[in-house]
């Protein structure tokens, strides 16, 4: 009898150790697993590599994690935002490494990891600073850059509903990176607004099949009330 539904965030997160590579879902704060991030902060692990589209907003969530100094490196596409002051300060002080990846390459490198591909030729970024030093190839009239998979030890994501086998459905644009990160991490921990009985999720509507999810934690708040910035990404 498999039950991936966990009661206690602290217990679930305790398997994360110093030096872990962690994907965190979300686009800005939409889909950001705020409660899991808070749990990660409380855990006090260090020397982390974080993969996220952004580099935190305001003083909460991912930004607060950065502020604790727990993050050695961030891989993202859009760190600079009007409310990314935590990251900005760390970056200018040379206290955090940044690997800047075009958003679609971030997505397809995460997908490549989940799909078990060794590398992919992507057209995005060809001829730009972000492809400097990278192998390129001319294929069928177009130029491509060779990009390697981004894997992670853990993915922390936010879904709307989940069952005890780990099946997930998301809500609106909070879906974003969740499904592909779940496929690319060794251990995926999903916070959900609601745990439902097996069979309540229609097999036609499941977005992330349970095979990609190791733990499901129901959280009190849906963390949808977090204030949003109006800045770019």
């Amino acid at each position, binding site marked *: 009898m498999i039950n991936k539904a966990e009661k206690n965030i602290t217990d679930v997160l305790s398997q994360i150790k110093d030096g872990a590579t962690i994907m965190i879902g979300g*686009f*800005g*704060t*939409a*889909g950001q697993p705020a409660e899991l991030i808070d749990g990660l902060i409380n855990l006090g692990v260090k020397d982390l590599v974080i993969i996220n*589209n952004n580099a935190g907003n305001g003083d909460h969530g991912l930004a607060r994690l950065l502020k604790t100094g727990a993050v050695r490196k961030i891989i993202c*596409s*859009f*760190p*600079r*935002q009007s409310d*990314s002051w935590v*990251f*900005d300060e760390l*970056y*200018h002080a040379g206290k955090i490494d*940044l690997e*800047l*990846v*075009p*958003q*679609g*390459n*971030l*997505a*397809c490198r*995460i*997908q490549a990891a989940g799909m078990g591909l060794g590398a992919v030729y*992507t*057209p*995005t*970024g*060809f*001829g*730009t*600073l*972000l492809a400097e030093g990278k192998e390129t190839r001319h294929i069928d009239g177009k*130029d491509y850059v060779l990009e390697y998979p981004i894997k992670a030890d853990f993915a922390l994501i936010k879904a709307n509903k989940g069952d005890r086998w780990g099946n997930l459905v*998301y*809500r*609106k*644009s*909070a*879906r*974003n*990176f*969740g*499904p*592909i990160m779940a496929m690319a991490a060794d251990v995926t921990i999903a916070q959900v607004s609601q745990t439902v009985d097996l069979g309540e999720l229609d097999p036609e509507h499941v*977005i992330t099949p349970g095979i990609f999810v190791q733990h499901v934690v129901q959280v009190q708040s849906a963390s*949808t*009330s*977090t204030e*949003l*910035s*109006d*800045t*770019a*990404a």
Partner: protein
Amino acid sequence: MSHTSYTVSTRDQIAERAAQDIPDGAYVNLGIGLPTKIAQYLSNDKDVFLHSENGLLAFGPSPAKGEEDPELINAGKEYVTMLDGGSYFHHGDSFAMMRGGHIDICVLGAFQVAANGDLANWSTGAEDAIPAVGGAMDLAVGAKKVFVMTNHTTKTGDPKIVSELTYPVTGKNCIDRIYTDLCVIDVTDKGLAVTEMVDGMSFADLQALTGATLIDATK
């Protein structure tokens, strides 16, 4: 050189002009900032499908006050609504739409556009600036047609349309058309062809405000 008196288009007028070139049934990604305005000028008798990087297709206008949903935002992190017939999908599928040539038109802002269609819009190359790229490079290489919407010159009067980029490139040879507050330019194999100018503008004056050689195609 004497200047004729001409009427500079407002941002809304540029957006309105660009909107005219978006056909019924087009799948369109409007870049963050100025291009977003185009949505307001799309005719109601057209079905234009707006795509957003973060996994939305056929999203609609801003919600009514009090109806905002933090989990229904566009790539500019503005609240939006969903039209009947819209869909949600993950980032992988969203960028497949962009990279895979499924988006008909994207309209981007620009720091510079070069005569060969190179675009710079992600970095000024400033020493201490924090770099950020988002989906700009994917849109530049992936959409079937890439339009730029921009002021013709910078605030300090420097040309944004140049013979060669001085800012870091976003995408090579990617721009098809440029909408500015002074004109419309098609990027062609022969060069930058000016197809329209604002009232009162002379070709010579426009050329003087431009850092690359223009071709007069207004006739």
